[in-house]
């Protein structure tokens, strides 16, 4: 075991994993965390906590992660390269590990231009690949980025993200390979709505043998409304929402769109589960944590294994 987390146990024992996501509040209110945590508890193997998602200031990932542990939920903290240089990242990761956090997702981060502080200086001292390599060096060689040694190493299951729908499509499996070579133990993908394209991506990933070197979790999420679907289709860079996904939601009466969105998400889970190389799903029900239990039940992924 590299970190000994529940997520690591689920993945290494060959169970099909299910992880969730919790967006921290734009305030210092702990009650929001408790409310969202109650909606996820017991239904997923670990919960990602975003790090200033879409470059909007929110309660920090590590502090929310610590609160979740107190509530009996295993956190996966996220760390971006946008807001911290290599000193700050390493310091925060030492602290996170000391607090007992064992899963870490390494990201470059959404550009600050998109968020609520567009005049901020973006750090980008490292990129996600360099971040992954640095964390692996800390964990496996007890070395800081500068090469100095430490007494007690941070223990993390190292995660990476990949967007199968970004361009150049032909390069994406090779970029994933770079992250795995750098040290990624698991991968969570961008939201999948174009399943045939994801299937082709996974075929290439498996041809490179990457599924044998890393656990790949397919990113999924329910669509709440046709407006949201159109927004993701037209305005979110790197998102691929095919017209038939929207068509299915348009075919039901307006008051049933949410219900259909949940069913559609469960159907996508069933589809991606059959794709070779997929080791689990990462359910991103952004500001709709209530939907997670029903999605996973419909997808036949409950109850979760207890290891």
């Amino acid at each position: 075991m590299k970190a000994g987390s529940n997520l690591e146990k689920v993945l290494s024992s060959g169970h099909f994993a299910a992880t969730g996501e919790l967006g921290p509040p734009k305030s210092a209110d702990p009650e929001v965390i408790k409310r969202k945590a109650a909606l996820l508890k017991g239904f997923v193997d670990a919960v990602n906590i975003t790090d200033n998602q879409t470059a909007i200031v929110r309660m920090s990932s590590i502090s929310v992660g610590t609160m979740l542990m107190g509530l009996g939920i295993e956190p996966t903290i996220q760390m971006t390269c946008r807001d911290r240089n290599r000193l700050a990242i390493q310091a925060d990761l030492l602290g996170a590990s000391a607090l007992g956090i064992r899963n870490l997702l390494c990201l470059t981060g959404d550009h600050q231009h998109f968020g609520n502080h567009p005049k901020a200086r973006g750090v980008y001292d490292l990129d996600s690949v360099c971040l992954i390599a640095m964390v692996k060096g800390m964990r496996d060689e007890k070395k800081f980025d500068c090469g100095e040694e430490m007494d007690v190493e941070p223990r993390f299951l190292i995660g990476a993200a990949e967007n199968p729908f970004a361009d150049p499509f032909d390069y994406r499996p090779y970029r994933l390979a770079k992250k795995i070579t750098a040290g990624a133990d698991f991968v969570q993908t961008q939201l999948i709505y174009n399943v045939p394209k994801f299937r082709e991506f996974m075929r290439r990933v498996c041809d490179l043998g990457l599924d044998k070197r890393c656990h790949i979790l397919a990113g999924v999420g329910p669509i709440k409304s046709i407006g949201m679907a159109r927004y993701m289709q037209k305005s979110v860079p790197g998102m691929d929402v095919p017209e038939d996904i929207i068509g299915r939601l348009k075919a039901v009466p307006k008051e049933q769109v949410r219900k259909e969105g949940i069913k559609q998400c469960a159907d996508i889970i069933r589809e991606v589960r059959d794709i070779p190389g997929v080791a689990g799903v990462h359910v991103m029900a952004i500001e709709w944590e209530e939907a997670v239990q029903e999605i996973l039940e419909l997808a036949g992924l409950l109850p979760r294994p207890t290891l």
Partner: protein
Amino acid sequence: MIKAKQKPLAEIRALIAPYQKILILGCGTCVTISFAGGEKEVGLLASSLRIAAGMDGLQKTFAEATVQRQCEWEFIDAVADQIKRADAVLSLACGIGVQALAERYPDKVVLPGVNTTFLGMAIEHGVLVERCRACGDCVLGLTAGICPIARCAKNLLNGPCGGSQKGKCEVDPEMDCAWQLIYDRLARLGQLDRMEVLQPPKDWAKDYDGGPRKIVREDLRL
């Protein structure tokens, strides 16, 4: 070359408000080529400021001069008399020229009339683009001659982020994704295997993070 953009007139008027006799000093090199601070722009700006001062009933005089390069002592020494006669010098050179004046004339108020913007080129008449960040440790040999430090919004070293779509950058749909350009050019050169090489973290100490930079060439010193 260094590219610059003239400051808004309102900002320039606020900068010069305390002074009566103003020398507008252009530069004949980079800012002339980027149409921001050459002889022509000095003349246009002087006219605008004279009209504005006249409308406000202010007694201001605007002298005009342009030197070949404001970043060299010998050229700015040539206008020493005009500088001495002025209360303030409004420089239309880049930040280097402004500072050269401030250093050469310790008792003179020197004000910037342009915003020094980037190192770049005109890809067509009137369209200037950034090409170099002067990071001090050139990576162009690894990236097919296209700079990810200057041209990727996140200065990534290990390939395109998840926001690269249809060849454009997520930050600005008008802007090319630098890594798509690098990928395409490496493909053309038969060097796509370079996209698989892990690049280590960059040494930013060679950039401005190491403090102000200096080159001393002992072989050239007198």
